[in-house]
């Protein structure tokens, strides 16, 4: 009978982690629905980016208030995991505060955790106030509908509750209080419980302990459904993020092959098309550009899952600032929503996608949004986790132009001019040097 709590704990732990792993697999499968993209270059720069941007939070602190608050929550999250490790060992072995045996260092550690817990709690309250009381503009844009808004608040509530439970757990731990080491915060809170019997205190302590660890497991599994997933994906995303100059857009390789053939005087125009043997290494894409998530590459899909919906991109976007429909954040949210829909479709149809008559273009992202982009890179500069909404916008424009010939009329005129005159305006190429004599 005495092993029941340990067994129960093991079951809950395995179930919690197991469910999480199952969802991570689904996540990986969804991301792999994207086209392949080569990111094997610039390894040292990539490691550096990950260290600076994800680990070092270098882009978060560009907005100092949010940056500092976020850094506190982030450091708290990482360091308090040592405590979680102790909880897991205690839970499995039936021990109590197993790390206490390391002596005075334990007191220092717990003291640090307690102070961090308070700092995290305060930061989270401030985050909540910024969102819900001050109503900062970027949290109240049109794409921040019910779920994105609630999601953000749920995360904050979760963190408040977890921190509170941690402190109550310490404060009601009679033996720990008796040790009188490291309980810098909890000794104050302990006085709130002073009138209670030792038995009652023990029940509260055990209750807080259990709800705390179960809460952590629930929170872990909440990640998959939430923008909070960024705490994991920010690392691969900053590693695989763009290392080329921001202005450099990729040259579509399939187009290069076509263009080279067209320009090659030795090609026999009447030759039968080559057998699709894939001799060139790159297979011809089914279509140019992207109209749905499967046409995007896996990095763009990873971007979508990494997006924290902080809206820094949108608040910097010149189109959005001047009231146009484009919001880079919405581009990322739409991509994720559609990808989730496609993933569910695959799950429901035994592993194969069944045509659902919907796609990312039009059903989620409108042409009006796509054509409003000035490709200025304000969004990619602003993103704290190296997301590139511009690459998705460009791929969708490519689809509109190369597959549908659906560019705005003025742009079609511009393109015709380039084709005929080598300039976006209808001037003769032979007049290019006229300025010299004017």
């Amino acid at each position, binding site marked *: 009978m005495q092993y029941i709590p340990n067994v129960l704990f093991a079951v809950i732990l395995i179930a919690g982690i197991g469910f999480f792993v199952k969802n991570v697999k689904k996540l990986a499968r969804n991301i792999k629905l994207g086209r392949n993209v080569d990111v094997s270059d610039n390894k040292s720069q990539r490691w550096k980016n990950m260290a600076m941007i994800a680990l070092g939070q270098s882009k978060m602190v560009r907005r100092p208030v949010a940056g500092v608050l976020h850094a506190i929550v982030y450091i708290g999250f990482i360091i308090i995991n040592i405590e979680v490790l102790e909880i897991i060992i205690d839970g499995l072995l039936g021990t109590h505060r197993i790390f206490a045996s390391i002596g005075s260092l334990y007191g220092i550690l717990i003291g640090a955790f307690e102070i961090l817990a308070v700092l995290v709690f305060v930061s989270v309250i401030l985050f909540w106030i910024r969102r819900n009381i001050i109503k900062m503009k970027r949290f109240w844009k049109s794409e921040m509908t019910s779920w994105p808004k609630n999601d953000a608040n749920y995360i904050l509530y979760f963190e408040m509750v977890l921190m509170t439970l941690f402190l109550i757990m310490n404060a009601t731990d009679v033996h720990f209080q008796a040790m009188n080491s490291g309980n810098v915060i909890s000794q104050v809170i302990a006085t709130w419980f002073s009138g209670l019997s030792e038995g009652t205190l023990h029940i509260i302590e055990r209750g807080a302990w259990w709800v705390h660890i179960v809460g952590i497991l629930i929170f872990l599994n909440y990640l998959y459904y939430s923008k909070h997933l960024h705490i994991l994906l920010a690392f691969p995303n900053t590693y695989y993020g763009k290392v*080329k*100059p*921001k*202005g*450099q*857009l990729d*040259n579509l390789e399939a187009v*290069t092959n076509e*263009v*080279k053939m*067209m*320009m090659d005087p030795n090609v026999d125009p009447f030759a039968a098309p080559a057998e699709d043997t894939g001799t060139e290494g790159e297979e011809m894409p089914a279509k*140019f*550009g992207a109209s749905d998530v499967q046409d995007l590459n896996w990095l763009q899909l990873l971007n979508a899952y990494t997006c924290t919906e902080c809206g820094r991109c949108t608040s*910097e976007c*010149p*189109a959005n*600032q*001047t*009231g*146009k*429909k484009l919001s880079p954040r919405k581009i990322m949210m739409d991509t994720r929503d559609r990808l989730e829909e496609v993933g569910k479709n695959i799950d429901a149809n035994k592993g194969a996608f069944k045509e659902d008559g919907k796609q990312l273009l039009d059903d989620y992202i409108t042409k*009006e949004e796509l*054509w*409003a982009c*000035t*490709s*200025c*890179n*304000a969004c990619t*500069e602003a993103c704290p986790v190296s997301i590139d909404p511009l690459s998705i916008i*460009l791929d*969708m*424009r*490519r*689809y*509109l*132009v*190369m597959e549908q010939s659906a*560019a*705005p009329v*003025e*742009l079609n*005129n*511009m*393109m015709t001019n*380039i084709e005929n005159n*080598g*300039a*976006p*305006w209808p*001037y003769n*190429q032979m007049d*290019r*040097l*006229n*300025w*010299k*004599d*004017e």
Partner: protein
Amino acid sequence: MSESLKVPTMAEFMAQGKQPEVLFWVGCAGSFDDRAKKITKAFVKLLNKANVEFAVLGTEESCTGDPAKRSGNEFLFQMQAVTNIEVLNAYEVKKIVTACPHCFNTIKNEYPELGGTYEVMHHTQFLKTLLDEGRLTIEGGQFKGKRITFHDPCYLGRANNVYEAPRDLIQKLEAELVEMKNCKRNGLCCGAGGAQMFKEPEKGDKDVNVERTEQALDVKPEIIAAGCPFCNTMMTDGVKAKEKEGDVAVMDIAELIANAQDL
């Protein structure tokens, strides 16, 4: 005064069996747009003054394909790119300077994968090296002490991290350089990039160039300096929309330097 402009072509250099120090890529705006042509001429005057042996492609130059690529027409872009690269490689061009950040970005970043690798400089970077090498002197002249604000072109700044060369040049004019609310990596687009120059903007509260001009006017400049022919047009339109064209001039950095010396 136009007689004094020396603008040799690559074909002429080749006929003499010579290679210029640098190819000046004029760009479509610089060749055809009335406002941008003035920037082209100002830059040529500076090249002449500094005795730089440069050449242009003239009628052999064609659009880099930037607006086609950014509006999604990858075919047209690559056709333009491959054609231009053939011309450039035939002339064995090594070094290119251009006053257009869009041409600069495209040739510098997107041409190498298609077989065209060159050393590419924006004209402000090139003028800065001429200055550093002592081949060009810059005087303040009429701009001494004037309040000048610099609008960062997206395709020079954020796209390629060139922020200092244009600012260094403005400071050499002994002018007072004032920064807008959004500058350098946080610069606000003029609204023309990504082929927006060639179409009407989508519906919104206001046009991007008006917003940007308001930011510029907030710092009360006498001159808004630009480093891109498209930004120049957009900011000029913005100043007109605010009915400030009598008080505030929009000028390219090459024009500032050339005008300061009455070239």
